[in-house]
């Protein structure tokens, strides 16, 4: 998109938004249609396929056994990874993870970690030696915007649907072919609401066209209790304190709607 096109898109979107209308007919604080399917993949221990309007994301959970970190010898390990694969957008390239992919994974990781979603102590097998490792991998199928909210929704849905594989304590081996009925011990179910800002107008659940011209972005992670568990501001624009507080308040309301889907 040339600079000229961008300027006219900003004008077009902001004129509509002043009337509380978005390009796709939504209001400023409406989410697109959400659809979640879980456990559709047999090789993953848990999986979810999230549709958020045009945006579509696969999240898979794999469980493995490894050594705990020396500073937390009794805790299992959570690893969140996101790949902005070029299959899902013409703006993504092959190669090592881009800063955007790393940011996406780390923001989602923070929301899960900081809300103590996973009861990591219960993932200990032998202190200092063997613990369960929880791998959450996020793969967009189509980037129609707002991978943050779709990614965390998918991560939570996949974690909830996951089952442990069989573990032989004597042989110290995981049998990935056999799943037990045991679920991952979860304390919380955080969700995320991400807002965009164009010409001082704030709106939720950006499309990729809105993302392209938005000055700034704010992601708010909300735990089950309604508390904030993670935040991240992105983009080269700014937010005022009042705007941030408004976003948090909106997130508390919006996350209640999102929660119905997991």
């Amino acid at each position, binding site marked *: 998109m040339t600079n000229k096109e961008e300027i006219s898109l900003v004008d077009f979107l902001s004129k509509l938004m002043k009337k509380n209308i978005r390009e796709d007919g939504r209001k400023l604080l409406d989410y697109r249609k959400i659809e979640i399917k879980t456990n559709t993949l047999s090789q*993953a221990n848990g999986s979810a396929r999230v549709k958020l309007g045009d945006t579509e994301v696969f999240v898979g959970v794999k469980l493995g056994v490894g050594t705990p970190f020396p500073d937390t010898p009794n805790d299992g390990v959570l690893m969140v990874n996101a790949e902005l694969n070029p*299959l899902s957008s013409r703006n993504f390239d092959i190669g090592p993870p881009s800063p955007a992919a790393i940011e996406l994974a780390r923001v989602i990781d923070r929301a899960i970690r900081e809300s103590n979603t996973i009861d990591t102590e219960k993932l200990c097998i032998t202190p200092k030696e063997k613990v369960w490792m929880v791998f959450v991998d996020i793969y967009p199928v189509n980037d129609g915007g707002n991978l943050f909210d779709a990614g965390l929704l998918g991560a939570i849905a996949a974690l909830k649907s996951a089952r442990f594989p069989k573990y032989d304590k004597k042989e110290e081996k995981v049998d*990935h072919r056999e799943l037990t009925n045991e679920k991952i011990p979860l304390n919380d179910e955080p969700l995320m609401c991400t807002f965009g800002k164009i010409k001082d107008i704030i709106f939720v659940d950006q499309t990729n066209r809105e993302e392209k011209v938005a000055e700034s972005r704010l992601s708010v992670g909300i735990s089950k209790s309604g508390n904030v568990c993670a935040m991240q501001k992105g983009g080269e624009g700014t937010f005022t304190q009042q705007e941030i507080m408004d976003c948090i308040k909106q997130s508390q309301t919006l996350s209640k709607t999102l929660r119905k889907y997991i």
Partner: protein
Amino acid sequence: MGGKSDKPLLNKGQRLDGRAFDELRPIKIKAGVIKQADGSCELEFGETKVLAAVYGPKKVLPKHLEKSDKAYLSVYYYMAAFSTSERNRPGPSRRSKEISKVIKDSLAPAIHLEKYPQTNISIFIQITNANAGTRTAAINAASVALVDAGIEMKDIVTSVAAGKIENKVVLDLFQDEDNFGQADLPIAIMPRTKEITLLQMDGDMTPEEVDKAIEISIKSCKDIAKLQRQAIITKYKQDDMETKNDK
């Protein structure tokens, strides 16, 4: 591979999943599933699930790869981290690089690359769930995605694998048959002319067995090609309906 395992793959002369020796797994094909892409396809061969996207014809980057007389075709095949029983470390591996290359070589003969000089046609293939036959599923999906993208083609490339278990030649191996069987022979053809565009083999087979494996593969490729065509027709009918509704 090599048949060294004692794991029985036939139960009273029957395959473990109950299929006939020359029977395919259930196949699902859907075209136009990724809006961002110029063409796309989602395909399932039993529990093997793949996504393919085509971007292009577009500008060639980096520029030195540009060809003055035809399109530069690039194929990128990769497996999602959660697609295998042990987590698959993301990023290119020697295996995925080789498979990307053989897929490219299997599709190139069918594409009118000469009609798109100085451009790049990119194909991205993601294995979402692996249960043997990922490269053949990938080729089937990629050719549907190419047609969906409107790229001019001589034929739709169709692919399947045959193999050998307990000294029997069988079609479309699933995971256990692939892991513990005696041979695996993936093949791709242009069904109209039966020209073979991909052929690989590992394991142990007699020439007669190879012949038979190719024979049953070509036969079933015709069935797969019908499903590929059907998927494209369904997609275009849908598009047609949507445009009518818009009017």
